[in-house]
């Protein structure tokens, strides 16, 4: 279980995240939603243990992240930023193998089990045919799949993703989210992500947390949160929920922008 206790983040005098407390059950998917500047990116970076907290604590299965060395933390939680950097010239296989650094360290070559883990993930995500390609030359969808492969190679219980479908077309968005859903369902992975697309957030997620100005405004099931009046108020626009073949679709409505 991932536990956030009174997490507060500041940048100088500005409060980015204010007193956020959450419990995310193991093997579930929690998505943080909210308008630009709500503090989503800062919050997920803190959940990954990458930001020093001004107050509070983040722990995974009872272990406080700020008390762990980097390698131990990297075995508990993996992180994908909004714009992952793909070094030019690094092959897909080399990039995915970076996910095993926490296991073999930087002074030793990958062991047989590390190579097996990389091969397994490449096959699972249908990237084996690309393994010798330059990762920076892949298309957006293939590239994001490669980043996900590196994250899964890290073999953590928890994965934190900041806007994992930014810049992808609809098919590739669905593709990436389906992959994650499968990992949650079949492998018990815990996913904490941020998403801007409210429809996809509602379709794939067990739980939505609405963040606004650094504070949790609403925390509940996707069904409840996307129908709430607080959602439209936070985004400052009118939103309607339309059900299409059993799927809730969140639609913005023109001409009634709230301030």
């Amino acid at each position, binding site marked *: 279980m991932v536990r956030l206790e009174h997490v507060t983040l500041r940048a100088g005098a500005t409060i980015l995240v204010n007193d956020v407390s959450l419990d995310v059950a193991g093997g579930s998917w929690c998505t943080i939603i909210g308008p630009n500047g709500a503090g989503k990116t800062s919050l997920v970076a803190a959940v990954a243990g990458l930001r*020093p907290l001004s107050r509070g604590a983040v722990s995974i299965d009872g272990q406080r992240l700020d008390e762990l060395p980097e390698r131990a*933390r*990297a075995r508990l939680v993996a992180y994908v930023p909004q714009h*992952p*950097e793909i070094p030019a010239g690094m092959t897909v296989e080399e990039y995915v193998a970076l996910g095993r*650094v*926490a296991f073999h360290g930087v002074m030793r070559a990958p062991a047989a089990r590390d190579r097996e883990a990389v091969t397994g993930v490449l096959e699972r995500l249908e990237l084996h045919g690309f393994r010798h390609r330059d990762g920076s030359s892949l298309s957006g969808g293939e590239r994001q799949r490669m980043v996900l492969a590196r994250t899964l190679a890290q073999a953590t219980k928890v994965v934190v993703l900041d806007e994992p479908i930014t810049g992808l077309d609809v098919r590739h968005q669905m593709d990436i989210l389906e992959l994650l859903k499968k990992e949650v369902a079949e492998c018990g992975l815990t996913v904490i992500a941020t998403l801007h697309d409210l429809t996809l957030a509602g379709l794939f997620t067990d739980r939505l947390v609405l963040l606004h100005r650094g504070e949790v405004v609403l925390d509940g099931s996707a069904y409840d949160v996307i129908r709430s009046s607080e959602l439209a108020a936070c985004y400052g626009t009118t939103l309607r929920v339309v059900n299409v073949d059993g799927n809730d679709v969140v639609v913005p409505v023109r001409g009634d922008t709230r301030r």
Partner: protein
Amino acid sequence: MVIIAVATVATLVVAVILGLVIGPTSISAQRILGDALSHLGIGHSTLASTQSSVVWQLRAPRMVLGLLAGAMLAVAGGTYQGVFRNPLADPYLLGVAAGAGLGATFAIVDIANAATIPTWTPLLAFAGAMVAVTLTWVIGGRSMRSTTSTLVLAGVAVSALFTSAQTFLQQQSSAQSIANVYIWLLGSLANASWHSVLIVLPYVVVCATVCVLAGRALDVMSVGDDEARSLGLSVRSVRLLVVAASSLGTAAIVSAVGLIGFVGIIVPHIVRLLVGTSYRRILPISVVFGAAFLVLADTVARTVMAPSELPLGVVTAVIGAPVFVLILSVRRMGNS
């Protein structure tokens, strides 16, 4: 990769042979080998004692110091390019050159109108280099959230400060002192001796080893600081270690041979074009290729206008730039 490694080692062997054989007194490689074996009690030497002295007291220490300088500058350049994720980074980025320049100038202008460069110049150059890098780290690297760009900017500021102090000292000194400062600044292996080799050897061995061993960590750091940390790397510790090793090794070399430009930036780039972007391959090959490159450049520097010598930095640029352009063109043709 294996072919390139073998070719690089072969280039090193050729450079070593040329470094010993070529000079005003022509001595064949076979006779030098015979003399070397005779010192081990195998066979008889055909070299006169003066020829033996030329080879083992003049050319050999010069060649070995060239190997050490080339290896250290090349691996430090490659390491800096990795740790700062900046292809324009060179070993002088954090103020080593400016610090060493100020230290050397201080030593040289201390004796006005001296005909030669004082013997304690390397010591003050080394001290100046270390003071400059430490100052850069204290200013730019003390914050936990400091970025590489903060460190680079601190290096620019410290370099500017030390260079202006050096310029002031030069302005206050005699024409002879200024000439001596420039002779030192342009870099040369002419004053090499076994003594200078023994002084820099431990620095180069330790620092170059640390840099080469950091190759895998630099590969991880190529995805950015946050991602590298999320992958389990202690980014700040690795950065401190490799910057310290690169700077210390470079300071030791600069104090012994002056400022030799271009090797630290061009050699890792040539190697990158040949072996790809992984620092696990770039750094060890840069050690060997940098060593060979500088010995070849020095052989050209001391023979092309003999008996006078060309500044070594000029030769490294004149040889290195066309080689780099050639490899770049071949690669582009290969990719198209």
